[in-house]
């Protein structure tokens, strides 16, 4: 099976079959990390540009490692001073200039929702959305699904609580689309000041109580308070936020006994999550990071025209 699309811009427009294709493909790439020589020749001769207009540590490193392990030639640009971005060049001019160097794939993170969609319309290269504003972060949702499937063997029928700053979270939106497409049940919890209007129409149950949200769930996914996006007056203090919405061992105990705990990182310890649970036995937070590389290898491979034979990957 092949992925019949030029770009990966979001989960919203992917079918369940496409999501499963990416996840199955990622299984076969995960094993590369266990080899002494962590490299396959799959994308030899292909050029990938990483355009991070918004700062990033883990996503950028993850994409760069994925590209190198696939033997692609990759170049990265950050939103550093001295680049053309800081000289007032428009996004479109930057993208067209870079495209003139004939890259095969542009991996792009941008603080404006829809920016990768705009560039994808204007450029012939494939575009991978590495996070756009408050809209989508598709590879994060894919690596989260990969991690859940790895631990639980399935997504269908699972109950997942997503807790925290929902309104500013592209991770929440991408996960909500992905999990509901694959048959999981999603409950969202957070303060009303950080809950976007109408999100229940996307198939989630919404509650203000973390205790209620985590009751009996298989997966607890905590979100980072996005201090850089807060508009002010969202909650009175980190102290009160933690008291009302932070994940503690007592709250986590309401979940199923075999529940797993996830966080897309970076964590605000003591604000949305207590260190004892972040580092506890339920936590799969570092597995998420590990799996991110395999999932991004799969995405880059499939967008380059790669195929995965049906039944080649473990069917779960």
């Amino acid at each position, binding site marked *: 099976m092949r992925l019949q699309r030029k770009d990966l811009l979001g989960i919203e427009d992917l079918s369940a079959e496409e999501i499963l294709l990416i996840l199955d493909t990622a299984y076969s790439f995960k094993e590369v990390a266990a080899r002494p020589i962590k490299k396959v020749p799959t994308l030899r001769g292909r050029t990938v540009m990483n355009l991070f207009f918004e700062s990033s540590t883990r996503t950028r490193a993850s994409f760069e490692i994925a590209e190198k392990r696939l033997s692609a030639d990759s170049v990265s640009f950050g939103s550093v001073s001295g680049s053309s971005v800081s000289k007032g060049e428009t*996004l479109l001019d930057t993208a067209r200039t870079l495209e003139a160097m004939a890259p095969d794939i542009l991996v792009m993170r941008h603080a404006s929702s829809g920016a990768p*969609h705009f560039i994808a319309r204007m450029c012939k290269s494939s575009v991978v959305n590495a996070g756009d504003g408050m809209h989508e972060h598709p590879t994060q949702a894919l690596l989260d699904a990969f991690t859940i499937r790895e631990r639980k063997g399935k997504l269908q029928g699972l109950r997942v609580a997503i807790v925290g700053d929902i309104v500013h979270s592209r991770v929440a939106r991408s996960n909500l689309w992905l999990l509901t497409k694959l048959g999981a049940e999603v409950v969202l919890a957070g303060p009303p000041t950080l809950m976007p*209007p*109408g999100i229940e129409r996307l198939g989630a149950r919404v509650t203000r109580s973390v205790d209620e949200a985590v009751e009996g769930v298989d997966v607890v996914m905590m979100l980072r308070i996005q201090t850089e996006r807060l*508009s002010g007056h969202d909650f009175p203090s980190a102290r009160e936020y933690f008291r009302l919405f932070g994940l503690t061992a007592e709250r986590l105990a309401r979940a199923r006994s075999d529940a797993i705990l996830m966080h897309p990182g970076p964590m605000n310890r003591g604000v949305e999550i207590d260190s004892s649970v972040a580092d506890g036995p339920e936590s799969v937070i570092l597995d998420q990071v590990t799996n991110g590389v395999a999932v991004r290898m799969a995405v880059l491979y499939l967008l380059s025209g790669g195929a995965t034979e049906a039944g080649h990957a473990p069917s779960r």
Partner: protein
Amino acid sequence: MRLVVSKGRVIDPVSRLDATLDILVEDGRIAAVGPELSASGATILDASGRVVVPGLIDMHVHLREPGFEHKETIESGTAAAAAGGFTAVVAMANTSPVNDTAAVTEYVRRRSAEAGKATVFPVGAITKGLEGKCLTEIGELVNAGVVAVSDDGHPVENPLLMRRAMEYSTLFDVPIIEHCETPELHPGGSMHEGFWSTCLGLRGIPAASEEIAVRRNVALAELTGARLHVAHLSTRGALQAVREAKRKALPVTCEVTPHHLLLTDEAVRGYDTNTKMMPPLRSEEDRQALWEGLADGTVDAIATDHAPHHLDDKCVEYDKAAFGVVGLETAVPLCLDRLVDKKIISLSRLVELLSSNPARILGLPKGSLAVGADADITILDLERTSTVRPERFQSKGRNTPFAGWELRGGPVVTVVGGRIVWQAHDEAM
């Protein structure tokens, strides 16, 4: 110079006319309206099978001159007006320099007289530099020819200043046209706040932003007795506030735009920056409320808020793009196809909304085909079909959300002061 517009279906709500008649124009005025008129040496304009209405007036446009001639000029903007069937436009004050002095008003009037195809009525600023800090010399602006005052583009946030502006405006009997918004409620907002802003991850502008401002300004109009005209009204709540004000017989009027009547926030899917304007495209519920307002008379006028922008202002990230869409060349076909042809409103009501009501609100000697009135006439063809093609616009702005729409009905001839200023290319008249 004499002109006979012959055998058209003449619709004039002010004269309560709807009949096949001739119109005789002499020296720029309507000289006679009746069956089978003739005059020696007159040019004959055959309007049989067509609808002849008082010249349409767009009471809310941005012509961008002086200061932003790369977006639009008085010449290109009035050419767009004429090509859209408008014989007069009301030009907002947010130019550079701002129209806050008689010198700028006089400049706009002189450029319009030199280059303008349609008549331009300037609006003066309420506050100097649109800064919301101190009143302009409204008396001098009115002397120079402004027909209303407005800080359009910016609301007047300070309630005391707005109160004083309203009180002071009653000296000159000019309406205050207010852009009703509460900006502090939605920093960074770029679309209507609702389900679609949630899906698209764009910061929202709640409907309450407009309703809060409309209700405050209605209360101040009641306090001061000033005439308040609400610009580009877009929400159910704001419409209800105007409806209640009218029930109290307050001198409050409002306009709506074709884009708010015909599109909703769902159109933002795909992040086309030509769907970005202020106020933003609202919910389906709001859109339906505006249709009810058209039908029950709460809405006084349809105005385009024609806001041309350069491609560079729009070909950027959605949240960084300029607010505003063009409207002069699409409004009439859109209204004929989507409102009149679909039986939402009658043709006569459309003429009220696009001509006689704007003239009444602004006190213009226009908006009627009565004998003695200015000979501003728009001829419509209800069967003519067209496709919206931005690349063919007379306007310098190409920023329309309606590109590619196929529409039935449109203007075919525009007459200003007895002079034919525009005819559709395929017209063999």
